[in-house]
């Protein structure tokens, strides 16, 4: 089906050639000019603003928007989206709320890709890119996608589930223009299909192949041949079924890689003793463009020195699956002067973080994950590590830090030293834990963060927190868009401060905090500006939620029971979101839409 704009141009050219050219009307000229100008406008916020100017601008913008972003798949229906935006090349769809990642949402809640792919199959023949986050995607959906879009180039699935290797086989074999296949933190079923062998034999355009989340073996010989016939490959992230010996074989075929996920980084179970181990150091040294390194899923730390040659060029290093200790980290990090993104396990201890602070002066993003994610685990990192990072890494913009002990002083220090912070997420794993030196609540620390970090848009709080912390957030957190609260606050006032004080708030997720119906009511003026509100195990009543639903017809108010819950009126979770549509009809039995 030829594109309308191509047709118009053909006619114009034909008109000029035959002398039948008719000058377009002034309005038409304006609209053509506008469309051409708008082609350069990529930011969706700018485009939203443009579409509000007047009807003709609305139309022009709708015709020229090629990147469709839908932050909540239930906020708008596929039909409505397709009717407005007719020439879309790329779609981003997000489904479940983030707390679903932690088993707080019963399975089969929703967020199905099927209605979307079905609608797009007939309406967006030129579709090139699909990015899905927390959606339920079936093998049939993938099959339909592969069949329907001849120009399809990029598939990125993040935290999705519902499909398996048979769906991937369809994508590999039918999407002949495929450049990107990125599977990130998905749950992929093992259908025992050799999907790696399904890529075109003659050669591929693959630039990025990421499958480190796949928890089943792959056909290595087929992968090796695939890499050999994919000359554009720059990003390759292997799963833990690829041994270091196999990694070597791939690396020597693809020294042009910029992003590498190293698989298990461990020898396979049985290795011939007589054989020399390959020269891993040379293989890494040959990858002169390597800037991003991850994997290390079952690391044998002996092999760490192999990566030394690339450390000086690395901008991103992900050790968050590598059980390494302080000394092992130090041996690597001392070379990583250009590092901007660093993910690591707390097994490296405070001293390891001190080493990071000493070397990584360009650090923008740090994530420290717990090797033992339980409330009462040892906790090898503390305020000492946080303080060190704040002093050494002044350009820090984003931090996620799991720990068992923290002090207000260290958090305050970070608020002052790292004024560029945009994302601050601190998770003190023991619930209600105070400052472990002063015994005080953590109010002052988080207060300092919202006060001093003027660019802050995302905040996650933890530890012992009173309503005072929330008053700080409401007073100073004027740019905060995403707020995550757990086991915090004393009374309804806490939630009120935030709902009344934070005009930019879009995503609010709260669990196990003493906020009730009165607090919920205080946000009525703001809920249409938000993407969603999640409240679980708080002090809400069914009537309180019904009141909101009555007051705000543009909100979908879902109350979600635990599947085992006997009491049909009781509920665990309130999940509400603005929507242009009537409430969804695909909700399971344990969801009640008020």
């Amino acid at each position, binding site marked *: 089906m030829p594109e309308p704009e191509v047709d118009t141009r053909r006619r114009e050219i034909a008109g000029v050639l035959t002398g039948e050219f008719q000058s377009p009307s002034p309005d038409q000229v304006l609209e053509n000019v506008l469309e051409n100008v708008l082609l350069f406008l990529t930011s969706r916020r700018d485009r939203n603003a443009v579409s509000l100017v007047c009807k003709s601008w609305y139309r022009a913008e709708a015709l020229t928007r090629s990147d469709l972003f839908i932050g909540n798949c239930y906020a708008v229906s596929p039909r409505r989206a397709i009717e407005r935006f007719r020439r879309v090349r790329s779609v981003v769809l997000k489904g479940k709320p983030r707390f679903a990642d*932690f088993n707080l949402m019963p399975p089969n809640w929703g967020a199905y890709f099927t209605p979307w792919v079905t609608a797009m199959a007939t309406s967006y023949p030129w579709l090139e890119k699909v990015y899905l986050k927390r959606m339920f995607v079936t093998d049939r959906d993938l099959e339909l996608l592969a069949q329907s879009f001849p120009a399809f180039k990029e598939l990125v699935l993040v935290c999705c589930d519902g499909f398996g290797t048979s769906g991937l086989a369809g994508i590999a074999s039918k999407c002949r223009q495929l450049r990107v296949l990125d599977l990130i933190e998905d*749950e992929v079923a093992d259908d025992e299909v050799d999907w790696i062998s399904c890529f075109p034999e003659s050669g591929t355009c693959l630039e990025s192949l990421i499958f480190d989340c796949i928890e089943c073996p792959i056909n290595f010989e087929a992968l090796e041949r695939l890499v050999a016939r994919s000359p554009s490959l720059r990003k390759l992230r292997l799963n833990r079924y690829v041994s270091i010996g196999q990694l070597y074989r791939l690396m020597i075929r693809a020294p042009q890689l910029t992003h590498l996920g190293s698989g298990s980084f461990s020898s396979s179970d049985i290795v011939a003793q007589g054989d020399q181990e390959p020269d891993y150091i040379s293989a890494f040294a040959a990858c002169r463009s390597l800037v991003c390194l991850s994997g290390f*899923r079952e690391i044998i730390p002996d092999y760490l020195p192999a990566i030394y040659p690339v450390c000086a060029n690395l901008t991103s290093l992900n050790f968050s*699956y590598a*059980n390494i200790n302080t000394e092992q980290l130090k041996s690597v990090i001392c070379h990583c002067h250009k590092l901007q993104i660093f993910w690591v396990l707390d*097994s490296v201890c405070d001293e390891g973080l001190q080493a990071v602070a000493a070397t990584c002066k360009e650090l923008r993003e740090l994530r420290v994950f717990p090797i033992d*994610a339980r409330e009462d685990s040892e*906790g090898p990192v503390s305020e000492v590590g946080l303080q060190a990072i704040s002093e050494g890494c002044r350009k820090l913009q984003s931090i996620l830090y*799991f720990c068992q002990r923290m002090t207000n002083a260290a958090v305050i220090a970070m608020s002052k030293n790292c004024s560029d912070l945009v994302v601050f997420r601190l998770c003190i*794993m023991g619930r209600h834990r105070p400052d472990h030196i002063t015994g005080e609540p953590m109010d002052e620390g988080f207060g300092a963060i919202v006060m001093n970090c003027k660019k802050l848009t995302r905040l996650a709080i933890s530890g012992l927190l009173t309503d005072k912390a929330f008053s700080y957030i409401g007073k100073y957190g004027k740019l905060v868009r995403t707020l995550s609260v757990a086991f915090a606050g004393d009374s309804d006032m806490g939630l009120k401060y935030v709902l009344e004080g934070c005009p930019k708030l879009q995503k609010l997720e709260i669990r196990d905090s003493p906020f009730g119906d009165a607090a919920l009511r205080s946000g009525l003026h703001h809920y249409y500006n938000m993407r969603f509100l999640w409240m679980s195990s708080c002090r809400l009543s069914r009537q309180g939620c019904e009141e909101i639903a009555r007051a705000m017809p543009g909100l979908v108010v879902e109350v979600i029971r635990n599947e085992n819950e006997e009491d049909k009126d009781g509920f665990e979770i309130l999940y509400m979101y603005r929507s242009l549509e009537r409430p969804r009809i695909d909700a399971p039995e344990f969801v009640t839409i008020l």
Partner: protein
Amino acid sequence: MSPQLAKPSPESSSAGLHFNDTELTLGLPGATKSGTKRGFSDTVDLNLRGPCNTDHASNPSENDVSGDSKPPPAKTQIVGWPPVKASRKNVAKISKYVKVAVDGAPYLRKVDLEMYGSYQQLLGSLEDMFSCFPIRNYLNERKLMDPVKGSDYMPTYEDRDGDWMLVGDVPWKMFVESCKRLRLMKSTEAIGLAPRASQKCTSTSGSKSL
């Protein structure tokens, strides 16, 4: 299987080792912070002989080094807390892979030390892996295999300092923490390794009631 009775080692508390949930410990985690390898007197009687753990259970005074002998009560885990994705909790399960070499064998294996709770379990697994190589398990005289051609194999390991030690020298947790690789060494070559271990062997084997 009988639980390990061992004091939490100082190294393990400072390195944030994860304790096996079924392990009984004497004293609260992190109670001792001596920071050095434990001396001989600390290791005697506090080790690893499977059938002899019953002796310890009936002689609590021997093990009452730090007082309280009850493990701290584990808190019931709350759903979804801490907020770590299942993929990180499962795949990032604590594992510690080390290579295992056997003198004379043409291949290396690897084992995950975190899969085992005791030396008995590890050695049993090694025996299965290298079934044609009789492994001398001096820790439990009953299981000593008949030497083949007059030689058998001693399990040894290289620790973090680069020293080769006899397996069983130190408490299990400390071993897991410090072991870099395993080698099943021909007994003839193993003489001179950690002589203390063989002293312990003779002294404790005398006190066992089998």
